[in-house]
């Protein structure tokens, strides 16, 4: 009798175990973990302060970009401002994904991409909540909702503050919307970002970045920011606002001087990102002399890095942001 009961219990347990193993696979795509940026494109890299190549700025966006003096970041009130959400794609650090479960039901409530030194965290709400009113406060990280479309996570961010994008080369406004597509294929994650901004962009600005799942992340954690005296001149005269007047940016011609690319392309615009724009370049572009410095050459035997200081393993300069080597212009004296 006892044996029979034990056997029935065992049978029930066995059926339960097998049935559970045969249940639908609820894990759709798991993004949990740290994804190291591959960084083989120039999303965050540019040596010249004026490099708007392929960026679909409107005239207002171009004017804003060309008035920007990176010394403005040394003003006390700006030192702790963060970059806008697109910095997740153009910035130098990994994406650290965690799941946020509902505390009661344990169902997925949100995905969280951890912040790093100068980028706020991104919480992707998955519970169907709406975006706030357009008059709601804006934050550095913005407000993000997400939904699965097949195996792709689509997330939309609004309510972010104005901020500079692509290593201080231009701005997105507080009315911008960023749509992310997260496509995981094995241990590779491709993020496609489409930035739309009625203030500074004439057309959507699409960027991609590829990441690899890593167990050896090199994170730069989000920590409290404390303003310090970066430029004495700004503290001596708090009324100074570093900027450049129209047509006065001192680095306006650097890309043209270095690469022979016409200035009309350097200042961007939607037409510069389409293939037919090459026709306007054909009679104006002459290939410059061979590259001699900072060319991304492979490391010589016994050396860990390629040519040029500060290049990453792909041989490109580090993306911008505080924590990276300051680009030309940062720390320069403000205009008199």
């Amino acid at each position, binding site marked *: 009798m006892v044996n029979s009961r034990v056997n029935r219990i065992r049978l029930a347990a066995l059926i339960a175990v097998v049935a559970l193993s*045969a249940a639908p696979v609820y894990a759709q795509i798991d993004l949990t973990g740290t994804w190291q940026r591959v960084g083989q494109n120039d999303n965050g890299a540019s040596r010249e302060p004026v490099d708007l190549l*392929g960026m679909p700025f409107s005239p207002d966006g171009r004017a804003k970009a060309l008035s920007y003096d990176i010394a403005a970041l040394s003003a006390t009130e700006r030192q702790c401002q963060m970059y806008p959400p697109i910095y997740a794609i153009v910035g130098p650090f990994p994406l650290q994904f965690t799941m946020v479960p509902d505390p009661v039901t344990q169902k997925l409530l949100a995905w969280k991409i951890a912040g790093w030194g100068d980028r706020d965290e991104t919480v992707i709400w998955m519970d169907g909540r709406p975006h706030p009113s357009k008059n709601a406060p804006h934050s550095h990280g913005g407000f993000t909702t997400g939904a699965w479309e097949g195996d792709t996570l689509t997330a939309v961010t609004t309510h972010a503050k104005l901020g500079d994008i692509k290593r201080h080369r231009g701005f997105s406004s507080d009315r911008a919307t960023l749509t992310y597509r997260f496509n995981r294929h094995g241990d590779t994650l491709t993020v496609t970002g489409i930035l739309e901004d009625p203030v500074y962009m004439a057309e959507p600005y699409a960027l991609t970045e590829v990441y690899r799942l890593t167990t050896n992340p090199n994170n730069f954690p989000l920590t409290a920011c404390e303003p310090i005296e970066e430029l004495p001149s700004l503290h001596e005269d708090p009324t100074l606002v570093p900027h450049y007047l129209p047509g006065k940016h001192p680095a306006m011609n650097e890309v043209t001087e270095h690469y022979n690319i016409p200035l009309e392309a350097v200042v961007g615009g939607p037409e510069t990102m389409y293939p037919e724009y090459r026709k306007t370049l054909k009679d104006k572009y002459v290939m410059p002399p061979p590259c001699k410095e900072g060319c991304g050459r492979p490391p010589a035997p016994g050396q860990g890095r390629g040519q040029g200081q500060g290049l990453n393993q792909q041989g490109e300069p580090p993306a911008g942001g505080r924590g990276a080597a300051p680009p030309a212009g940062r720390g320069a004296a403000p205009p008199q």
Partner: protein
Amino acid sequence: MSRGLVVVVASMVLAFGLVRLDAQRGNPQPPRAPRAAAPIDLTGYWVSIVTQDWRWRMVTPRKGDYQGIPLTLAAAKVADAWDPAKDEAAGQQCKSYGAPALMSVPGRIHITWQDDNTLKVDADAGTQTRVLRFGAAQAAANTPRTWQGISEAQWLPARPNVPLQLRPAERTADTPPIRPTGGSLQVVTKNLRAGYLRKNGVPYSENAVMTEFWDLYKRPNGEEWLTITTQVEDPLYLRTARLVAPVFKKEADGSKWDPTPCSSTW
């Protein structure tokens, strides 16, 4: 209770689960031709959006500029000897239009079904054609190597659109069935003729293997975007895999289609 009963019950439950799992993953019974089974529609005209690596893609970059490419010393040696005039004279002006580079070359592509098992990708830049065959696409030993190589395609249907949960959802009998939507195209390309990853002579060898994932994004406003995650592996000329993801936007028609021949210098 006999062990036989346990085995029978377990087998039934397991088989039931596998069938459900198989159905979830979108494997139809019986199998349909790839064209009919396509989880996404890639056909049409697409224009490349050049917002990244502009100065290496929109113009022929200066000699010796290798930024972003994890090339080996052997590759640098080859690239240092790049001579576009010599390539042109040798009839090798298409070396930078091979499959590992073609989707990053500014231009338009036109995707059509050649037959029920074959997608054709025409590129106006360099007037090249890629042929993506579903199913085994093994090259015979003496098959000539080509710029576009031999591409084996495979649909990767999406799994069911079930929210990720830390414990299973409560599903009642009248819950609608789960319908997977979306999916990707995976393409593996081999049998390549050696060419250039970048116009200024950064090489890939004939043993390079390219793996791509084509992901479509239909936006609520009607726009369609295509991201092609591209991984090139070449132990001779690359220290690590080359990984980029060029982006395309769909166009209404072929009115801007502009075939141009290959060029070594422009």
